[in-house]
């Protein structure tokens, strides 16, 4: 069975092999010297001011929810993106609708998706103007 995703899977395999290979090579051949400074958590050159295992500000949760929200939005755009260029996608549907004398065009499809985006953009603007994204 010719899997069109074979290159993707092979890419995943190669990525895993490369990263695991680099880690294990470093572990196997690298010198293992220890020191107080070397075992310190990496904080971009700054000295860490406290333990990383503590409670985080609840405002981070808004960031997480916003991420999931726009993640779901993108998920619904994905079938549209695939159907857009697929040989049996929107073009074929428009042709079929034309044969059946039904009013259906690429502009209509584009408008449908833009309405979908506009509703969310409206909320985004509202939330932005309410100052929710300000870190205070």
């Amino acid at each position: 069975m010719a899997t069109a995703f074979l290159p993707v899977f092979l890419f995943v395999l190669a990525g895993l092999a490369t990263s695991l290979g680099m880690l294990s090579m470093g572990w196997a051949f690298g010198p293992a010297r220890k020191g107080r400074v070397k075992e310190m958590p990496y904080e971009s050159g700054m000295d860490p001011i406290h333990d990383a295992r503590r409670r985080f500000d609840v405002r981070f949760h808004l960031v997480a929810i916003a991420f999931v929200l726009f993640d779901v939005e993108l998920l619904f755009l994905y079938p549209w993106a695939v159907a857009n260029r697929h040989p049996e996608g929107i073009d074929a549907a428009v042709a079929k609708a034309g044969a059946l004398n039904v009013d259906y065009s690429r502009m209509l499809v584009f408008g449908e998706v833009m309405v979908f985006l506009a509703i969310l953009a409206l909320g985004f603007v509202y939330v932005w103007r309410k100052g929710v994204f300000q870190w205070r």
Partner: protein
Amino acid sequence: MIPSITDWHSFFFYLFATVTCVFALAVLFATNIVRMAFYLIISLGASAGLFILAGAEFLGVMQLMIYVGGTLVLLVFGVMLTAQERFISMKTRGGEWVMAAIVGGALLVLLVQTAFSIDDWTAPRADLSAVSAIETQTATRLGLGLLGIRPDQAEEADPVLRQGMSGYLLLFEIVSVHLLVVLIGAAYLARSKRVTSLARAAEMRR
């Protein structure tokens, strides 16, 4: 030499199935909740590979985006926001093992029995060599359905029946409204938090 393509399909099926099962077990036996979350990411990611292998690429992408990308971010954030001092360490007690084994075992028996009771699934389909994962086009058909066309119903001869099969455009737009509600709800929660902290600051000043 690269083995034939049939072997690749089986190879990746066994690879993803093994990774899914091994890391699902690792979730069970780990005691650190952050490690559990990480094992769950790998397990769910591998099951997304299984979905794509089965020709359900939209389901696979959904698994990757919603579960691996979204739900686990929320899970890890939940741990980060609530953890006291050390991250929670969980140990399963004896009674919980028994209960979980009964419930999980019952579901497993049911699923295995159902899977083996379907005749089509006991042998490879006859036209196996002619099938390719891309030919299933689930994402294309779904996309057309969401945009108001049902390609599988276009052949319906009766024009009255065909009118009722015009796809899911309204639901597609309603999804957008739902997401809008979630966005405003989340923003409201964050705002009320700030109002209370402002109120507390005003109280302290008094």
